[in-house]
């Protein structure tokens, strides 16, 4: 008999209504442990609200979210120490140095041998030269690396990323993607990545969930999506879905 593996993230009939707006409208998906999944969609598609509900930041109107078996947000303290999050839209205290920020978050997550962990992250993410500089005085690329170091400080089993390479130059963005790939392989972490960068999604993700107006419009591997939509790139698939041409193209195929 086949042994069923419990999903790292299980979303079931999830709904979030803000006053009269249905930001997320009955979505369901399950992510296998160790998988990398891209969450795609235009502005207002419901990606950020979905990620926020997975993190326990927002209470669902109905439906359930489970992370490593714990229901969010009710049982969040069972799993928050195993999760982390990175987004360019969330900052760290500007006046604290990089080392001070990492120390504070390391202590919040009760990281063992914190000094050693910070040193290892500084080596891996190339932070050593500005470890003692105020975080607010760093360039956008350096800040992203620091935010990534914070997101990895507890070696999370579940890593949520909201446009992790937004506003980065192509070289730095490529470097960040490479590091995320290595981290996932070494740690076996489950990664959910919201992104507008289709090249990033094609490179990192083995599965793509496309959202539109709170619904899941499609959910498959990038390869199968390309075949099904008869397209060469994920960008073209995304545009088909965003502009409502998806069904017509799939029917034609």
């Amino acid at each position, binding site marked *: 008999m086949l042994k069923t593996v419990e999903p790292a993230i299980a979303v079931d009939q999830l709904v979030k209504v803000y006053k009269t707006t249905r930001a997320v409208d009955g979505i369901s998906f399950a992510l296998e442990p160790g998988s990398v999944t891209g969450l795609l969609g235009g502005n207002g598609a419901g990606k950020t609200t979905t990620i926020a509900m997975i993190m326990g930041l*927002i209470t669902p109107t109905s439906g359930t979210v489970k992370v490593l078996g714990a229901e969010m*947000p009710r049982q969040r303290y069972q799993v928050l*120490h195993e999760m982390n999050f990175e987004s360019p839209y969330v900052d760290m205290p*500007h*006046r*604290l140095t990089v080392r001070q920020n990492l120390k*504070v978050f390391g202590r*919040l997550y*009760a990281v063992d041998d914190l000094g050693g962990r910070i040193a290892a992250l500084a080596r891996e993410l190339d932070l050593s030269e500005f470890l003692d500089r105020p975080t607010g005085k760093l360039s956008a690329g350096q800040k992203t690396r620091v935010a990534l170091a914070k997101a990895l400080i507890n070696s999370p089993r579940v890593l949520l990323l909201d446009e992790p390479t937004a506003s980065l130059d192509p070289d730095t963005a490529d470097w960040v993607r490479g590091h995320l790939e290595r981290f996932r392989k070494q740690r076996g972490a489950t990664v959910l990545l919201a992104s507008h960068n289709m090249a990033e999604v094609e490179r990192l993700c083995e599965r793509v969930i496309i959202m539109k107006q709170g619904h899941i419009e499609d959910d498959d591997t990038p390869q199968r999506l390309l075949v099904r939509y008869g397209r060469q790139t994920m960008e073209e698939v995304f545009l088909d879905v965003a502009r409502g041409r998806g069904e017509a193209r799939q029917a034609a195929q």
Partner: protein
Amino acid sequence: MRAPSISAVSLAPHRVAAMVLRYVYLLRSSWTRLLELIYWPAVQLFVWGFLQFYIAQNSGFFARASGIFIAAVLMWDVLFRGQLGFSVSFLEEMWSRNLTNLMISPLRPIEFVCALMIMSLIRLAIGMLPVTFLAMAFFGFNVYSLGLALAAFFLNLILTSWAVGIVVAGVLLRNGMGAESLAWTLMFVLMPLTCVYYPVSVLPDWLQVLAWTLPPTYVFEGMRALLMEHVIRVDLMLEAFVLNALYFGAGVLGFLALLKSARRVGSLLQTGE
């Protein structure tokens, strides 16, 4: 990584210490912030101290009640700056858009509140201790001569300041930076009613009823009784403590309810302007 405790109400000292460390790093990073902590209490002290001198020269009553204005301004600063120390530390998270990072970390709300209370004490100590020594040097007023009564005054005032700070933090979580002005102004709404510089008896009867619902009123009345009549009003301190326990408990419950509401409306994600 150490195994976490599961209960949402459990308190881990290492996480409280981590948050205190974060605020101490912040204070250390800016000498202007440190100076500002002393600056306003010192200005207040000199204004009210010289006023006390002037009135004492022209009034036998105030000559007898030596130091009454200086004591009042010091006590008011404990109340106001205690709350400000709590609220400003909380606001630092919103100004730096760091609140989301904290809310997705294992930090419990009660640990966050404990760290803010500790920071309120640290900021108060930095600001007020030098000012009490200035009061001795310039006006010959030794607030420490109040002895045990001073401890009772301080305990009651700091509890009120925390109760107000906790509610302000909850409103900020729920409503965002639009409610920031509450942190700076709410205590001044209470100021006329708490009778910092005058006895409760000067208020109209109906306002006196309202004034006696506020714990600081008991402290300021107790302070005047001690300085003018040399009587320690234990009854007033106990009544203030009972009221404070009620308000503090209500503040914590209010904070948790506002946090729950913030999760429902999604305002924990909107931490900027």
